[in-house]
């Protein structure tokens, strides 16, 4: 029999998709699970796998063709039928052709037409990663990082975020001493990844077409801010003990080449706190509130001109080591835009961590249908009062955004109090 392959829904918000590349030709044998095509959604370019085995009888959509979710992309002959016949039947329906090349953006109004006028059009969001890119660490924001093999190996095992490392080799290549220096003194502030835009000369303008991702972000966030009555609750947490616990654990884990981050410990505490406060570990569809017995933690990851929120599933069932390993994997693949569809949905609570930028505090916008999001700022030494005197302690400020339709301020505050207790006395997580 013949089986249709249709445009899958690869994200919650996806309504249509573009076939970027076919990996199989008509007449090719395909096996279930094999990579069939790259499909661009509103968020990223993702792989589409075959769900059935057989012979690819017909490709109904050319590369570059855009169709709604559910539309037929191809037909697979799974039995003894003649693929040619299947194709002729299938093609009776209208095939979508590749679109015309996008029109060039008009020059900005009011600008002269002389050669000095620089009107740049930004390229669309990064496309599929090269098939040979087998090492996720070697890419940052879809671009290759210049890094030596030795430095890469050390960074991978130490869990160093390469986007924060300043290379001192030729042409900024990251070499071993840069990783060593980074680990000795990770940049305290303002060395967070910065995508430096091309300079725009004086008198020039730059017109940038909205990418699909920007459209999606714009649509979702406007919807969120206009429909959800956000409230914000901020709390200071003394993470001195937690930091030293982390150091002790890392010393033990060094031989296993694992290096925990503060976020990992935070994720662990969040899982415990959220299960104690199920009102925040929930989704709301406008009618019903759904609470969950597991914590699926969404983690916002910045990528060029946008962000992706991979989901760490069942974090409540994980130990710290697993949290570290799975987070590193998700973040790296998110940056390379190589996440699978189900790795980006189903979060029951989200965090946004801008600690690397040295922020004291900030607030985040809720990603519906979730009902809350936690904004994590930088852990830093601050002067605080302890027992009547001023001492330096490592402090961390967290800001909870809650959806007041379903979670009241007191619920949010109670949750934060629990979280603070866990972070200030990490042993509580053992209970």
């Amino acid at each position, binding site marked *: 029999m013949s089986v249709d392959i249709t445009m899958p829904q690869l994200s919650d918000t996806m309504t249509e998709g573009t076939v970027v590349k076919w990996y199989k030709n008509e007449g090719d044998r395909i096996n279930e699970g094999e990579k069939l095509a790259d499909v661009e959604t509103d968020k990223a370019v993702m792989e589409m796998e075959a769900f059935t085995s057989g012979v690819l009888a017909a490709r109904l959509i050319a590369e570059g063709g855009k169709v709604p979710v559910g539309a037929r992309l191809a037909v697979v002959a799974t039995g003894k039928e003649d693929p040619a016949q299947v194709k002729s039947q299938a093609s009776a329906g209208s095939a979508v052709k590749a679109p015309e090349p996008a029109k060039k953006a008009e020059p900005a109004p009011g600008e002269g037409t002389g050669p000095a006028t620089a009107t740049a059009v930004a390229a669309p969001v990064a496309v599929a990663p090269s098939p040979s890119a087998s090492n996720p660490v070697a890419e940052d924001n879809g671009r290759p990082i210049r890094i*030596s*093999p*030795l*430095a890469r*190996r*050390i960074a991978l*095992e130490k869990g160093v975020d390469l986007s924060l490392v300043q290379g001192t080799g*030729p042409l900024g290549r990251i*070499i*071993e001493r840069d990783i060593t220096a980074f680990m000795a003194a990770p940049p305290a502030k303002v060395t967070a990844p910065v995508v430096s835009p091309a300079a725009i000369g004086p008198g020039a303008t730059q017109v940038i077409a909205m990418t699909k991702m920007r459209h999606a972000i714009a649509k979702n966030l406007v919807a969120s801010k206009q429909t959800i009555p956000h409230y914000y609750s901020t709390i200071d947490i003394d993470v001195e003990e937690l930091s030293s616990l982390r150091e002790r654990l890392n010393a033990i884990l060094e031989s296993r*080449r694992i290096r925990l981050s503060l976020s990992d410990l935070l994720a662990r505490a969040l899982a415990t706190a959220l299960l104690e406060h199920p009102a925040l570990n929930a989704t709301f569809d406008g009618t019903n509130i759904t609470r969950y017995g597991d914590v699926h933690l969404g983690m916002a990851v910045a990528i060029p001109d946008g962000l992706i929120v991979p989901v760490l599933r069942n974090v409540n069932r994980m130990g710290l080591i697993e949290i570290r390993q799975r987070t590193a994997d998700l973040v790296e693949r998110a940056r390379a835009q190589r996440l699978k569809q189900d790795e980006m949905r189903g979060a029951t609570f989200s965090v946004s961590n801008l600690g690397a930028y040295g922020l004291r505090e900030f607030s985040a916008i809720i990603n519906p249908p979730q009902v809350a999001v936690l904004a994590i700022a930088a852990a830093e030494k601050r002067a605080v009062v302890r027992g009547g005197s001023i001492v330096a302690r490592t402090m961390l400020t967290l800001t909870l955004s809650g959806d007041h339709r379903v979670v009241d301020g007191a619920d949010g505050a109670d949750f934060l109090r629990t979280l603070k207790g866990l972070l200030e006395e990490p042993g509580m997580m053992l209970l």
Partner: protein
Amino acid sequence: MATATGKPTAGATTPAVTGKGFEFDIIVIGGGPAGYAAAIRAGQLGKRVLCIEKENLGGTCLNWGCIPTKALLEDGEFVRRIRTEAADRGVTVGSVTVDFAKIIGRSRSIAQKLSKGIAHLFAKHQVKHETGIGRLLAPGRVRIEGAGGAKRDVTGEHIIIATGARPTPLPGVEFDGVKIIASRQAMILPSLPKRLAIIGAGAIGCEFADFYNALGTEVVLVEMLEHILPIEDDDVAVVLDRVFTKRGIDVRNATRTDKVESTATGVRLTLSGAKAGVVDADIVLVAIGVSGNTEGLGAAEAKLELFRGRVKVNPQFATNLPNVWAIGDCVALDFRADSPMAGSRHPDLAHVAHHEAVSLVDRLAGEGGEPIDYRWIPGCTYTHPQVASMGMTEKRARQSGREIRVGKFPFAASGRALAAGESDGFVKLIFEAKYGELLGVHMIGQDVTELLAELVLARKLEATEQEILSAMHPHPTMSEAVMEAAAAAGGRAIHI
């Protein structure tokens, strides 16, 4: 040759140290591998540059070191193979006669040709050249003392001292140039000595031992330290010692030279230690090290700081005087106490001098200037078999406290080496165990000096064990031994 403008005379007012009132942007004192490279690089960058050399351009390396000795060693090996290996390869030769003067002559003609090549490069890059001794008067000011007492002062914004080094005599035993000689005389002897004693079995001592042994001279090689080639890995020295001994060289390691006396027929050495005794020879070659050439420099008058006769510099090649720099064999490098090189001596090698020159001149010209990492200096000895190395010996790597993995591949297991009839030796690679960082390379075997470049590049690019073993090496070549040694470190070599 010089076309100086506004030529100051002796006793003229001291030139300003800043500003553009100088005849030259850069004055280089010395025309060896440090000096000529600095001068040419400066010329390339459009600087007005003067190079002062008292003798022939090219310095010791071209004229009295690296290059002429390689010519001698090639010829010696040619003779040795005819005499000892021709029969095994089915070639019958009659009695072999060696024209020693012709061998020396070929070596000299190559040196002269290369020295002329430097003069040509100077002209091409607009480098001015003066023959004479350069004396530092003050920062910015140098006196050229030419032949016949002619003196002329020149001014330059930057002064680079690159005066090189010369052989150090044995304490209490002066060179006489006839019976007690240094390397320079050893490469222009009037006739082949019957019996030659060599004190010092570093690269120079071992190379002359190899050469003269090949031509039929009886050679006694004396080394005070535990093994010959003392700075090399123990395993390498053991192989070379075995080969040398098999060829009839009297190797006396761990042996001290107590006395050198001139006799009616030659010299007599009195030795103590592991292989003590009295040795009579026609000539003794002293090759125990080199000392900086700083006596004509006027260091004391100019208040230039020296350390044990060498110009003291920091790792940026700065002396104690402003805009006065020093590079190459004449320097004593003062590493910072926290440097991994703290306590080390400057490696007196032509390629080090060359890189120091380019690094310094690029920096002076605002073109960056890649600093030299003294941990990874390659070194070669052109004995037969050759020795090539870089980085830590196994002993030092273990002493450093790191966990290491060592991979060794013998040439006896290399098809290419067997085909060449050169199965002595091995490639030994030392890796840090956790990340596979390349810490040391030690090779002995035919033409291994040419194999070293691959590992120099690997080190520079921070390639690890994994990249070296997985890089496809061509078959059949000696270079496969590098790949196999890397594989052997992880217990996965295919051919052993």
